[in-house]
């Protein structure tokens, strides 16, 4: 693998030729914000590095650069990063005649280092602020763990965004094909991490139920079940649908998604168990109450989950008195 490393102390070299990465955590679409918070630098960085120990001469590094076609080499002492010899340093050495001298005397040692556990949003901010193309990355033990480049980040983001667009396209197809369903059967698409429109399906279902003479308690139970199922799709899945089926004696609410599935069903039904990220928790979700809430308001509850599909079905029965009311009306 070819590794390129350049660390310039002269920042102005790059300022005129590099654009900032146009995404961030405060005004990018939700999916992007979540993505750059969730992905860590260690998920995108290049790990296999060519490095040299102290005592190596600048000449040897120059040869290494030519052979391996790289433009910078880290100098390490027992995995500890001491500095980086860049192409610029080599040119200076040739110019000023110290190419035979040792790297520790002429390497760039005033480096900006990143931590491998930082989210990539951090790296993006640093790339924009300092205009370097790459940063050395350290692990918890402060050892050199890799190098992260703008290209690493952009490639991974494009890969993730491709997946997102792909699933959006498939969802749109699914919605188009579900049109023309009778009034007794409503289907609402729910998108992954779409907090903007979250709650729409539940609100519509509540409106429909309110038009009948159902008891407020029953409507509330249906609203709770549909909202929690809807939020589960938003928070945990790749996207899916909420379906409401209306019958004379009950309403059935079905949350269906296209993966990635629930790994431990028993745990997921316990209060307090959650796989949500910190960011989602900060919005007030992911407290591990969703499925237990649905279960507690349902007269009948079922769940099946595979990595391709999770289906949760909640049935809410109407009481005898409610049924009488409904009969009178019709």
């Amino acid at each position, binding site marked *: 693998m070819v590794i390129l490393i350049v660390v310039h102390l002269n920042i102005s070299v790059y300022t005129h030729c590099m654009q900032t990465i146009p995404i961030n955590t405060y005004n990018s679409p939700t999916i992007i914000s979540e993505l750059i918070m969730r992905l860590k630098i260690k998920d995108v960085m290049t790990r296999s590095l060519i490095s040299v120990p102290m005592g190596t001469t600048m000449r040897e590094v120059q040869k290494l650069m030519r052979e391996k076609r790289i433009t910078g080499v880290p100098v390490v002492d027992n995995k500890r990063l001491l500095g980086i010899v860049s192409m610029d340093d080599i040119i200076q050495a040739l110019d000023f005649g110290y190419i035979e001298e040792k790297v520790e005397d002429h390497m760039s040692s005033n480096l900006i280092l990143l931590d491998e556990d930082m989210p990539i949003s951090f790296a993006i901010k640093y790339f924009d602020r300092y205009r370097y193309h790459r940063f050395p990355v350290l692990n918890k033990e402060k050892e050199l763990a890799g190098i992260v480049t703008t290209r690493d980040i952009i490639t991974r983001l494009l890969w993730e965004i491709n997946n997102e667009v792909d699933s959006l396209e498939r969802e749109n197809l699914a919605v188009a094909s579900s049109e023309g369903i009778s009034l007794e059967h409503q289907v609402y698409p729910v998108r992954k991490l779409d*907090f903007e429109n*979250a709650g729409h399906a*539940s609100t519509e279902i509540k409106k429909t139920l309110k038009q009948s003479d159902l008891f407020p308690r029953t409507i*509330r139970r249906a609203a*709770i079940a549909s909202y*929690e199922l809807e939020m589960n799709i938003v928070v945990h899945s790749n996207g899916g649908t909420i379906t409401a089926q209306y019958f004379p004696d009950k309403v059935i609410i079905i949350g269906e998604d296209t993966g990635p599935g629930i790994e431990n069903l028993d745990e997921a039904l316990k209060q307090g168990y959650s796989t949500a990220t910190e960011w989602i928790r900060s919005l007030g979700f992911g*407290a591990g109450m969703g499925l237990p809430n649905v279960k507690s308001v349902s007269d009948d509850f079922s769940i099946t989950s595979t990595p391709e599909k999770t289906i949760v079905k909640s049935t809410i029965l109407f009481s005898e008195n409610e049924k009488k009311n409904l009969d009178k009306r019709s």
Partner: protein
Amino acid sequence: MVTIEQVQQKLNLKVLTMGEGSTPISSAYTSDLLSDVMANGEEGGALITIQGHKNSVAVASLIGLNTIILCNGRLPADDMVEAAEEESIAILVSQENQFTVSYKLAALLGLCN
């Protein structure tokens, strides 16, 4: 019976949208977890929280809360106020924290014995 308007005046709350100001507030629930609010909030009540985004309005509307009191001077996203206007839910802001707002409101509602 204490109305939204009375609560707003007595607790010195900033009005972002008034909802139906003359409606009474019957109870309140204090939480930042929306599933918790969903499970335990009562119709006709107020929500005391720091969650200043649209999803709080969705939850309030679904279970019939008529007021959201945002604490610690939190200012919500613009789309939250718009959503609340549509649903006729009041959004009021307090400079105080959830605990303080809760006991003051409890006293006002006559729930402290």
